[in-house]
């Protein structure tokens, strides 16, 4: 397991990390990552960036999120839903993340994909932070994670707004 620290999201490099695809009403995102944990980190970036302008969000608190699923896509959706729940109930906005995959070698015999995410950020303060979309839910709609020929990963996530 890597010991590196959560890495800060860089809104300046947003275009390299994710883009919004055309959808009649909701937020349909295509996210990229060099590997599966990085894909999940970037999906967290995309989620928070869709809700709050991150430039002025500070790393004042760290939380740990866990999620598992029968596939990488389902585990990713669940992790994002965890992050959304924490935002909705405690106002927690993440601005840095470090994701580990806990299944396979560490849990032989399990078919589940499991992620653990360390996320740093702070409580939403609308006097300092500009808010964007209100995300109602991370849906199962059009949900997909694929591995490309280059070995990089791509995810499609639809946020109900």
């Amino acid at each position: 397991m890597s010991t590196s620290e959560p890495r800060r999201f860089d809104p300046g490099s947003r275009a390299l990390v994710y883009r919004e695809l055309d959808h009649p009403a909701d937020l349909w995102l295509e996210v990229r990552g060099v590997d599966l944990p990085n894909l999940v980190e970037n999906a967290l970036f995309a989620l928070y960036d869709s809700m709050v302008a991150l430039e002025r969000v500070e790393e004042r608190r760290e939380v740990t999120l866990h999620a598992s699923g029968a596939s990488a896509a389902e585990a990713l959706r669940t992790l994002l839903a965890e992050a959304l729940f924490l935002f909705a109930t405690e106002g927690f906005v993440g601005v840095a993340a470090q994701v580990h995959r806990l299944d396979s070698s560490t849990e032989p015999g399990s078919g589940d994909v499991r992620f653990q995410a360390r996320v740093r950020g702070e409580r939403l303060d609308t006097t300092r932070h500009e808010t964007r979309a209100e995300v109602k839910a991370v849906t199962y709609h059009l949900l997909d994670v694929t591995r490309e020929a280059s070995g990089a990963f791509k995810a499609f996530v639809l946020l109900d707004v």
Partner: protein
Amino acid sequence: MIDVAHPPNREPARLTRISESIWEIAATGGMRVPGRVYADEASAGRLGSDPSLDQVRNVAHLPGIEGYSLAMPDMHFGYGFPIGGVGAFRVDDGVVSPGGVGYDINCGVRLLATDLDAADISGKTGRLVDRLFSDVPSGVGSHGAIERLTSPALVQLMVRGAAWAVEQGFGEPADLEHTEAGGALPGADPDAVSERAYARGLDQVGTLGSGNHFLEIQVVDQVFDQEAATAYGLREGQVTVMIHCGSRGFGYQVCDDYLAVMGAASARYGIELPDRQLACAPVHSPEGRRYLGAMACAANYAWANRQMIMHLTGESMQKALGLSPRSLGLRLVYDVAHNIAKIETHESGGRRLELCVHRKGATRAFGPGHPEVPSAYRAVGQPVLIPGDMGTASYVCRGTEEAMRQTFGSTCHGAGRALSRTQALKRAKGRAIDRELAAAGVVVRAQGRKTLMEEMPEAYKDIHDVVGVMDRAGVSPRVARLRPLGVVKG
């Protein structure tokens, strides 16, 4: 018994014109009933390859569907069911599906009348909107205008809905009679609600939210049906207030929880789904009953929420305009749900049936004489409230016998988006949408600049066209048109 042998349909959907406003998709493959789409010729032409047509057809595959899988003229692609979809399922052998209600359970519209004329607030609209913007919590992450609820209080709210809010001092008992279902669905089951939904519900009651939700000051600018307008207490030149919001994070969480439950339940009951987002369970199954119990809690949350926002609005208007409650004369015209599943009795195919009517982006439109229409409106039919975009207009229509015959007493719910959010942002780039609206006589205050761009008037279909389709179909004739003067957006 649930009949499960209905494989998905892979042929492209074709629309056949049945009448001026109705287009039919024949029942082929595994469809148990035909689809029916309400549209004018131009929009029916545009629908050709729209994926929402497949969704209309997919809904027709579900067990126990009665009559038709229906789509209103504001239809667009949704989650499993199309937005603007109506599906009625027999309680005896049919299903209930969270995807047929949507995330924002009992998202709906409340219309308030005042004793003011537009001239009374002329030159004061900016001040009024500023005051409403600060007094009615809105936007991402907003908290309620009241103290965080305790769990027992939230349970009371879930069971009693708007009546709970009235008891807390938010409004009058008379408001309840002018609220669909009296502001509380029966059968609310707080034990069927997850701890997570409780956590999300505790401090959001009394908040507008964001996105397409709004609070709008309007003027009645044209009356089309004098008798109905008089019954509803509406006249030309009068100031009205429209509130559009729902059950906030509480409802979103209930939907999210039960999508997972229903995914497993569909498989357990052997229900073959053409699309997994149509996950459902028999109405009578434990899963179906629990979902309906939790959904009722969320619906009641939304009615309490709109009841509280109405009260906050009244106080705010009095302060902004320096008026007594009596001279403001704020009263509830009506409150409708447009994301909900309800057990209703309808005549269909010569039989009287108990049905679970899913309205997802569709408004109930019960006709004259129906016992659920408030006594003051019973002669003319239920008021139907259809908001348009923030620069154009909203409509008050009325329910009819024809709606009971054609659409299980349902009609459209809004303009429906014409542009995606990304397209809208592109078009709005470099423009000051608030200044454009101000030039057109509409004062707008919004928490998020991006929301304002995404919600700009041209992002929506023409509300006049949408309402016109249902007017010509005889389902929900127009009563009055409301023009926006001031808008609070989350």
